[in-house]
């Protein structure tokens, strides 16, 4: 049913050989890749009790693969898939349930399922979209657009349309099942009713709505399966593009070529050089760094009169800057934190106190030389998203630095703690107002860590505007990092912290960990330091390139293999 091809079987033989030799990866083909994370076989010394995950040449015994699973499309992915299969430029407005957010991301595989309400919405959406499917009849069936009553043509339509929707060929039983659906639709409403019902049903099929990551029957005794080529094609495409696989990727899966690491890597590089990768990476960046919904009115226009006029420009800047920092020519992991150029319109240049840029409404690449800003963390959209109207929300800024950038989990305040109110103190700085945290012994345990980074962004007000004073007093944006490995120690302001982040292994590892959560739909997991370090090493070895980190992940067994329950 999964359409195993001849070359797949060849690949399977190869893999079994590797397993038998028990010398390294089970999903690769001997390793012509450029530094993937590999999995050791179950009998490998040092991996007592289960397979370990090898990283960039070495084995991490404690690391766990994601479970064999099904992974529901997010709303965004559903719309992209509908657009693809129906050949639409734009999808009509549909009502779709909003995803749960887990560890900051909305695509967590465990958390996504289909409720009764969502099922009803999908049913209705299927009905709304079905006519667009009928208009694709000729394209998929190869018959005349009017040949809706010809069952030979209908069968061809089911096979081709179905393969596009399921991202794999249909089994004979499935084609026959949809022919039954067609016939029922014909009884109600002639031939067109039959084709409408095929489309409406296919768009609600679990094989359309979920991606399967169940692998093949391969080596079940070892408790590990390798994704089928079609599953891998979908995994790759939804992770890097947020869309279903295109023709070239499906062809690679069909021929079995995708099983080879070299082919997988070359497909991944092709995808990453395509403009669709940009959309996906900025989606990651905004979830990674907890950006607010650009449509929400973030700031009170009475308190921050200039903000509304540049808000769209700010969010566009973040998007372009994140795309450039991850995927631009010469992008480095360092540049994510320390890039000294950005994308501004004239009104944003004014807001940021930058020199005049070329006229027009489109953002221009602009150097940040002499500006206090560098990289994503000082972009106005991020700062506004991390702030509130009444004050700069330093604790929430600090918590986000710890949680999103350093991957340090801070426990919530103990329930029994009598939390003292932060005094209003009209003529004080935020640092002075919040001093109670570190003076009170009940608070200082945690707040020494939190407040250490909480004031780093104080030179930026709630609207992302740079400032040097607050209520007439000079701002002190210094602080210190604790439990942050190579980041530990004092910093004098955000510029220094950003510079330190840009050379830090801790920051790189956290970024890698967050990207793995996004690309693999997994939440926090236990002992994955070794895996994460493997990814970081793969990147730093090759020019500190974010692309290389992504390549290392998608060619790894963490991406390509699954643990059976």
């Amino acid at each position, binding site marked *: 049913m999964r359409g195993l091809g001849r070359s797949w079987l060849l690949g399977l033989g190869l893999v079994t050989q590797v397993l038998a030799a028990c010398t390294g990866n089970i999903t690769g083909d001997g390793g012509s890749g450029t530094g993937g994370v590999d999995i050791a076989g179950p009998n490998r010394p040092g991996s007592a009790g289960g397979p370990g995950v090898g990283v960039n040449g070495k084995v991490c015994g404690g690391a766990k693969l994601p479970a064999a699973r099904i992974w529901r499309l997010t709303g965004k992915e559903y719309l992209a898939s509908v657009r693809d299969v129906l050949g639409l430029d734009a999808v009509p407005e549909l*009502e779709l349930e909003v995803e749960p957010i887990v560890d900051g991301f909305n695509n967590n595989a465990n958390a996504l399922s289909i409720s009764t309400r969502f099922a009803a919405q999908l049913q209705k959406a299927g009905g709304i979209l079905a006519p667009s499917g009928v208009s694709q009849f000729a394209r998929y069936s190869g018959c005349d657009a009017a040949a809706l009553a010809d069952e030979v043509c209908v069968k061809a339509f089911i096979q081709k349309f179905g393969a596009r929707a399921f991202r794999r060929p249909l089994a004979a039983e499935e084609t026959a099942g949809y022919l039954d659906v067609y016939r029922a639709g014909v009884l109600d409403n002639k031939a067109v009713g039959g084709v409408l019902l095929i489309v409406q049903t296919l768009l609600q099929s679990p094989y359309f709505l979920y991606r399967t990551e169940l692998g093949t029957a391969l080596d079940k005794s070892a408790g590990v399966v390798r994704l089928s080529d079609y599953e891998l094609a979908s995994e790759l495409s939804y992770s890097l593009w947020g869309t279903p696989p295109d023709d070239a990727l499906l062809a690679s899966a069909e021929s079995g070529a995708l099983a080879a690491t070299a082919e997988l890597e070359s497909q991944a590089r092709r995808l990453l050089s395509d403009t669709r990768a940009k959309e996906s990476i900025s989606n990651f960046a905004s979830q990674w760094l907890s950006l607010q919904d650009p449509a929400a009115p973030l700031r009170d226009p009475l308190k921050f009169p200039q903000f509304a006029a540049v808000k769209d420009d700010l969010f566009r800047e973040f998007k372009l800057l994140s795309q450039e920092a991850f995927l631009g020519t010469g992008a480095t992991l360092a540049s994510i934190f320390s890039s000294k150029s950005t994308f501004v319109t004239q009104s944003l240049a004014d807001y940021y106190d930058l020199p005049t840029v070329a006229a027009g409404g489109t953002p221009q690449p602009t150097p940040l030389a002499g500006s206090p800003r560098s990289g994503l963390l000082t972009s106005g959209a991020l700062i506004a998203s991390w702030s509130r109207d009444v004050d700069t929300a330093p604790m929430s800024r600090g918590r986000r630095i710890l949680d999103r950038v350093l991957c340090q989990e801070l426990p919530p305040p103990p329930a029994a703690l009598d939390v003292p109110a932060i005094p209003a103190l009209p003529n004080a700085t935020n640092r002075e107002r919040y001093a109670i945290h570190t003076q009170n012994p009940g608070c200082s345990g945690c707040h020494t860590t939190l407040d250490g980074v909480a004031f780093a962004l104080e030179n930026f007000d709630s609207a992302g505007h740079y400032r040097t004073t607050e209520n007439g007093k000079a701002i002190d944006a210094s602080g210190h990092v604790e439990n942050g490995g190579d980041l530990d120690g004092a910093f004098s302001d955000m510029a220094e912290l950003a510079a330190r982040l840009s050379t830090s292994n801790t920051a790189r590892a956290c970024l890698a960990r967050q990207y793995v959560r996004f690309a693999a739909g997994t939440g926090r997991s236990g002992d994955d330091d070794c895996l994460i370090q493997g990814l970081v090493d793969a990147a730093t070895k090759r020019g500190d390139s974010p692309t290389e980190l992504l390549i290392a992940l998608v060619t790894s067994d963490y991406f390509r293999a699954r643990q059976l329950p």
Partner: protein
Amino acid sequence: MAISTPDARLLRERRRFLLSLGSAALTAPLFLRELATASALPGAAPRRVIMFSTAMGTIKSRWVHPVGPLGTLGPLLAPLQPYVKDLNLILNDGGGVHNGGGHPALGRLLTGLAEKDSGPAGPGNGASIDQYLGKVLGAATRFPVLEFGAALDYSAGEEENRLVWADGKKSMTSEGDPKKMFERMYGLPPSSAEPTKPLVGPKAMVDRLSSEITAMQNTLGGAERTKLDVHLASIRDLEKQIAGLANQSCDKPTPPTVECGCRGNLGDYKLVPQQIREQIDLVVNALACDMTRIISFQVGSEGGGSMRFPFLKLDTHDVTMETQTMHFYSHNDRPDDYQDSGPMYQIHLWFAEQFAYLLSRLASVIDTDGKRLLDNTCVLWLTPMGEGRLHDSERLPLLTAGSAGGVVRTGQSIVTKDRYINDLLSTITHIMGAPVDTYGDPMLSKGPIAELLA
């Protein structure tokens, strides 16, 4: 005019800002902004609206309720008592229809224009609100809007006879004939030789999906299997809903029996009670099956086209009067016409009974989200006059029912001071998720009525 003062303008800006905050807070938090549709929030059933109008105001002393939470309704609203939690009573104190002048206010009740033929002005461009919403939101359904009516007579002046307008100058015809409306909605009634077959497609679809989910489930273990339990149950629920809806209202219903021209024809007016029930049944079918989400429903014409009530014993003391028009009673100064159980009292009570029937039907249908259809609908009951005896159009007794999916705050009696009907019309646009802050003539608009928005 008061609303052009700077203070009023500032207030309006402030209100607009607060409203924009409110609607933003309701939309999806992050990244799914594009999924939030104009007509409904993600995860909700679609919102529907019905603009239901009856003729010639009311008798306020028998209608009114103290400001605050609703308790026992006045005797003219007694038939609505079962739905008291779903209602709002809005006593519009000063404002109403600008220069309404009694009967002709009907023609501008839904357009919000300042004068007859004052032409395109502001949002709506002179169209009645149902037509405007149909243009903005109607693409989602087969009919952008359906215009129903009962006891219509278009023989007199357009302004006093017609509720629905394409723009400030061009009136539209509401469909008073249930048979014609049925044909529009369902095609011609089947001949007796060809009985309707129940649909087989929806069941085949659900069967296919169930078998696929089961097949997928059989390839899974542990928690993943549980994940699909929920999905499978959801699909089976859906099957029940499809079956339920088919039984309740989405099947082709029994065709109506009334063919109603009703133009001054006593015989036809005897059919009005049957006509209005058949029309209401079709309204509920249209909404339940999502054929449309926007309905206007005009009951009776004003002035020279006024309806008659041969089915009510209105003039027991003078049997020759039993065929008189409502217009006749409205201008008649006989002391008991407006007394309890007098003709006007009986007429307005009968109107409330028809409105109650509409609510009862909406409450009996379970919508796709498991709520009553009434809960996902906002039904407005409008009339172009205040105290019918006075023919004033400045102090209108208005009423809403249903929360449109929780968007409308209900269960209250409020007084709106110096607000033209425009503000209720712009409130409707907010309720339906296509908000504009002025509707019709902007000079008459202060913005939506905040007390009505949850």
